Structure formats: C-alpha cells, structure tokens
C-alpha cells in the first residue's frame, strides 16, 4: 500500500496534538483501549471534552510539561493509503527537530491559530519546509470555532501567508489553505457545515488525493553501493553482487554504467530482488545488481549511468542546520557522512547566518550555535560524488558527525 509521510509543525498551543488526535479519532484509528485511556485522563483532569492531544503526547516528561519535545511518529491508514505523521515540536529552540522530521517527509501541515494569525513561528515552519523542498504543504488555519468561523479572518491570514510565499526559494512547492477546527472536527476529516463560504477539500480529502508520483522528487538515478555480496558457495561460485538502494530514477538491465570513483565502465547484467531477477529497478527499491565485467567496486562506491556524472569534488558550499550545543567554528573538523560515505571535513568559511523567518541574514557570522542555519563552505580530505540538493534530495544532502562524541551534530544541503 502507498505510504505517505507528513511532517506537522505548529507553535505551542496551536492545537497540533489535538489535530492529530482528531484525525485518528475521525478515521476510527484510535483503538478501544487508547480511547478508554484518553477518556479516563480527560476526566481526571476535569475537562468537559475529550483531550485528543493525549493520544500523541508520548513520554512522561512531556506529559508533565504539557508539551511535545521530540519527533514522534503516529500511524493510521485509510482504504487507499497508509500515513505516518512525524510530529515535531514548534518551539524556536527545536529547529533541529523540525529539520529532522521534514527530511523524511513528502508533505507537511503548518498550523496557524486563527486568533493569532501568521506569527514568527509560522515563518520558521514555512522556511524549513521550503528549505527541505517538501513538495506539498497544507496551511491549516485552526481554531476557527473561536473566531466564529469568520471568512474575513481566514482571508486575512491567507493574504499574510501569501506575502510570505513570494520570499521563498523553492517556488514549485504546492500550497493549500484549509480552515479547520481540530477540537470540533470541522474540515479535518468531515466537511464542516459551519463554513459554507469554504468550498475546498477537507484536510484528509486533500491527503487522500495526493499523487505519489508527483510528490516524490524525481531526479537522475544514483546507486550507492551499500554492501558487496560474495556468497562463495558451489551454486554461486563467481557471484559478485552490489547491493544498495536506487535513488532518483530507475535502472535497467543493459544500462551502461560508470563506477565511481574509479570511473570504470560496465553494463548492468542482472537485477536481483531476493531470489528473483527483474528487468528494471524502480526508484527507492533496494536491490542487488551484477555487472557484465569484473570491475573493482566496493562499499561506498556509486554506480551512475554514462553521461550523467555527478560533481566529483573535494570542496563545496552548503546550507547547514546546526544541531549541537557546542558551536561550529571555522577550522573545526567533522566526519561528513554523505549517503553511506564518510570523509573528514574542515569548515572553511561561514559566509552568513540565515534568519529562518525570512527576516534576512547576518553577514558577520563567526560561529554557529544550536538551531542556527547558515551558508558554509567545506574542504574534504577526499572527493565525494554529489548533486546540488535542488536537483537531488538524497545525493545533495549530508550529515556532520562530531569526531569525539560520535553524535550527529548538523545536517547540510549542498548548493554547489
């Protein structure tokens, strides 16, 4: 079945958890035991309605603070699709979590409180979804029940948001506005009778009609070799298979390919998926490929089609999202993981810090702190094979790993 991953973002109290709880409730995805737990807790707390946010606020610490603090995954399905919601928190300090949640999503929901309208947080959420090139964004204007389902209020917020859209980098992003009340259930799963002036889809209707082919970013096929399979058995005596996942486009038997970094040419002989052979490996499938010629390919190498070479270089410039409490300074060294390849990277120059709310840049940025976003140049100890992020989401992104703590401390999107 088709799987769609959606990132959600909203500020504290925008009702994000309530919205997710409402979707689960109206699609009958809440199980009896979970529903009972919600009813029980809502009653204990003295609420006169069901607190759906309890369906998603996971860890005890969060429940005590009454806010979500990390990326949580929520699952539900309809007859046509399986959905995964990556619930990310909306605080200023959690930019890193939003970037993380968005990095694996194909669609995003940005929540706006109808009483507050577009605020700084909204700009941030939009900025990050745009930076990560999420194809489909739903702007859900929530708490319409608290503004008497007023059309003017909705239109005003929509106009403010549209002003923001002119500043975005990634213009092909598809944006839809929907007036909702998560608490009362208006236009979430069921069409509301309170807003006859709105004739668009409900939130779920919109998600149901998203076409997978449209929202997965297409590109040039790239095949990073993850593992070399050499069974050394009687039956498969000379078998040398290159296992990995196909990104960007498809590969077929007979395709002329180049192995990087050696630049040796060969042809695809067979494509295996488990014990069966296939003619073509589609985008995002994990397969094992054998080649016509015996050439030297090992883990970390990449197979690409002839005439479609990526950039092979020891330096590049990227937009990075810094995620660690220790600052990033020029001259610092990190392990840079690009796909499955790890190289040593040195921070060459911090060009400028970018305000993730569209309010401009700091030219004088000497050091980056947690949640900063900036344009940075790197020098590497050996070349990697990359594409700009705008052409290839997978081959244009990387993570930075601290050499001492081994923690993932940053994410980057290659510009050139």
């Amino acid at each position, binding site marked *: *079945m088709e799987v769609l991953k959606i990132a959600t973002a909203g500020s504290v109290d925008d009702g994000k958890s309530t919205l997710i709880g409402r979707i689960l409730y109206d699609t*009958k995805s809440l*199980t*009896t*035991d*979970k529903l009972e*737990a919600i009813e029980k807790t809502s009653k204990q707390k003295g609420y006169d309605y069901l607190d759906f946010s309890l369906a998603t606020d*996971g*860890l*005890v*610490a969060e429940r005590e603070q009454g806010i979500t*603090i*990390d*990326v*949580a*995954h*929520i*699952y539900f*399905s309809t007859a046509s699709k*399986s959905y995964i919601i990556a619930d990310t928190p909306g605080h200023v300090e959690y930019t*890193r*979590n939003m*970037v*993380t949640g968005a*990095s*694996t999503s194909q669609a995003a929901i940005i929540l706006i409180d109808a009483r507050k309208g577009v605020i700084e947080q909204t700009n941030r959420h939009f900025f990050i979804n745009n930076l990560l090139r999420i194809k489909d964004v739903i702007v859900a204007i929530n708490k319409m029940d608290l503004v008497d389902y007023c059309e003017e209020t909705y239109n005003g917020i929509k106009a403010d948001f549209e002003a923001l859209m002119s500043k975005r980098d990634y213009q092909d992003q598809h944006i839809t506005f929907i007036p909702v009340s998560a608490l009362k259930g208006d236009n979430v799963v069921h069409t509301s009778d309170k807003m006859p002036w709105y004739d668009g889809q409900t939130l779920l209707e919109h998600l149901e009609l998203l076409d997978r082919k449209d929202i997965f970013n297409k590109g040039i096929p790239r095949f990073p070799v*993850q*593992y070399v*399979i*050499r*069974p050394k*058995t009687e*039956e*498969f005596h000379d*078998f040398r*298979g290159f*296992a*990995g*996942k196909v990104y960007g486009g498809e590969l077929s038997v007979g395709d002329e390919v180049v192995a990087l970094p050696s630049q040796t040419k060969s042809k695809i002989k067979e494509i*295996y*998926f*488990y*014990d069966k052979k296939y003619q073509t490996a589609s985008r995002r499938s*994990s397969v*094992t490929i054998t080649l016509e010629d015996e050439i030297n390919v090992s*883990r970390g190498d990449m197979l690409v089609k002839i005439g479609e070479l990526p950039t092979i270089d020891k330096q590049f410039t990227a937009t990075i999202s810094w*995620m660690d409490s220790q600052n990033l300074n020029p001259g610092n060294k990190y392990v840079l*993981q690009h*796909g*499955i390849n790890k190289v040593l990277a040195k921070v060459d120059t911090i060009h400028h810090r970018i305000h993730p709310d569209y309010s401009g840049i700091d030219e004088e940025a000497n050091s980056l702190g947690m949640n900063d976003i900036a344009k940075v140049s790197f020098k590497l100890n050996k070349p990697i094979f990359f594409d700009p992020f705008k052409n290839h*989401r*997978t081959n244009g*992104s*990387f*993570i930075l*790993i601290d050499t001492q703590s*081994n*923690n*993932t401390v940053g*994410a980057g999107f290659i510009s050139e």
Partner: protein
Amino acid sequence: MREVAAQFEKPVLLFSGGKDSITLVRLAQKAFYPSKIPFPLMHIDTGHNFPETIEFRDRLVEELGLQLIVRNVQDSIDQGKVKEETGRYSSRNSLQTTTLLDAIEEFKFDACIGGARRDEEKARAKERVFSVRDDFGQWDEKNQRPELFDMLNGQIELGQNVRVFPISNWTELDVWSYIEKENIEIPSIYFAHKRKIFLRDGLIWSHSDYVYQEDNEAVLEEMVRFRTVGDMSCTAAVFSEAADIASVVQEIRESTISERGARIDDKRSEAAMEKRKQQGYF
C-alpha cells in the same frame, strides 16, 4: 540490515520466535541473498515460553543454517542477579533485561537488531532506527541522535552498543500483510486453537504452571489465538476463530483493540514501557 552488517563488527539479531522477529529473519535473508545471513540470532529465553514457539525457533534455524545463541533468564536467577517475581501478576518479562545485557557483554555485540515498532507503544514512537545505548544498556530519550534522510550514523565508542529497529515504521497490519504476501511460516499459536484459559481483569490468560492463578479463577476451554507472543505470564490471548493467515489479516484490519492491549506488562502503569526502556529493555 546491510548497514548493520557493514557498519558494525559484531551484530546479532534478537529473536523471540514472535512474528516481528520472524519477519526480520526474512528481511535479512533478502538483504544478503544469495549469501547466508552474516550474523547470529540470539534468544533470551525466560523458560516460560510457549512450547510451540521454541519448537518453531529450532526448526527455522535448522532450515536456514543459522547460528543460534540461547541465554536463559533461569541462569540469571540462579546466579542471584535477579529475583523471581511473586504473586498474582508475577512475570519473568522484565527480568529479561539483565540476561540480555549480560549476553551483550559476554559476546561483545556492538549492534542488536530487534523487531520493535513505533506504532506499538507511545515510548517506542520516539525510538530511532539506530538507537545508541550506553555501557549500562540505558536509553536516554532526551539525548537521541537526529536521523535525517536515509543516513544512519552508526559511530559509537567502545562499550556502547546500538539497538537497530529495521521495521520501526511498520504497523501491526503491515507485518501481517507481509507475512501473508511472502507466505512466511509462523508459530501455530498465532492461529485460532482450543486452549485452557482463565479470565482476569477482562483479559484472557493461559492456564499453565508458569502463570499464577487464584483458586476461584475457573479454567475454561475456548477458541483463542495470540496477537503477540512473549512470555506466557505476560501475554494474553484474544477470542478468535481465525485459523489461517487471510482471516487473521481480516481480523486485525477490523480490530479496535491495540496489539499491546493484550500485553499484561504494559497495563501495569501508563509509563511502563518508557521506564523499562530506560533500564535497557527493548
């Protein structure tokens, strides 16, 4: 799976005989075909398992030519490292943690592959695919590594180990549909069968020497099946007539009770799983 085999020196697949770990074995077969699975399986045996599960485990290992390591909770009890629980709700489930951590140390495993899924339980919803544990096997949920795109950072220090959850993003229905599609054999207790049971707190308990039972809790014989398979003392059954995979899938699709709703261990308190995880449980 391939990332685990490539990034770590000594990985192991934690195998319980349940449907999730059986699914993992199939995924591993696929990842390395035509080679054999390049790491062993390990079962932490509470000694209170369903005999059907153990029988199944041994047969699978034999057929696929895999290496199986078994470590027993009974040994940890005999060594005085853990104490058997007593009373109405006694179970060996939480005792597994000690045995597991000891085995990791004994074999110096640096990566343990497990079948946990994010949809099972709220605390599991925040797990990473690669989840780092410290020397004591503990999980620090506030200090997790962000996971971006498809990139898995498996760098660790000596003494740390990584728990790997390849089917993290699958739901219960996904697992069952996969078992149906791939025609994977699973232990018979997953299908409806006649069993001696008794009722307590609205749950169906197995009548067995391993399960504490009050004198006034009457033994019945009913058609039941299990949705999860763990220790006999912590796994409750459901009434069911679903005797084959297609009817099980149908039943799950229509069900309104969550899978772990039949796990007695989770009912102990609302934050039960999170507490166990911080101590080193899966």
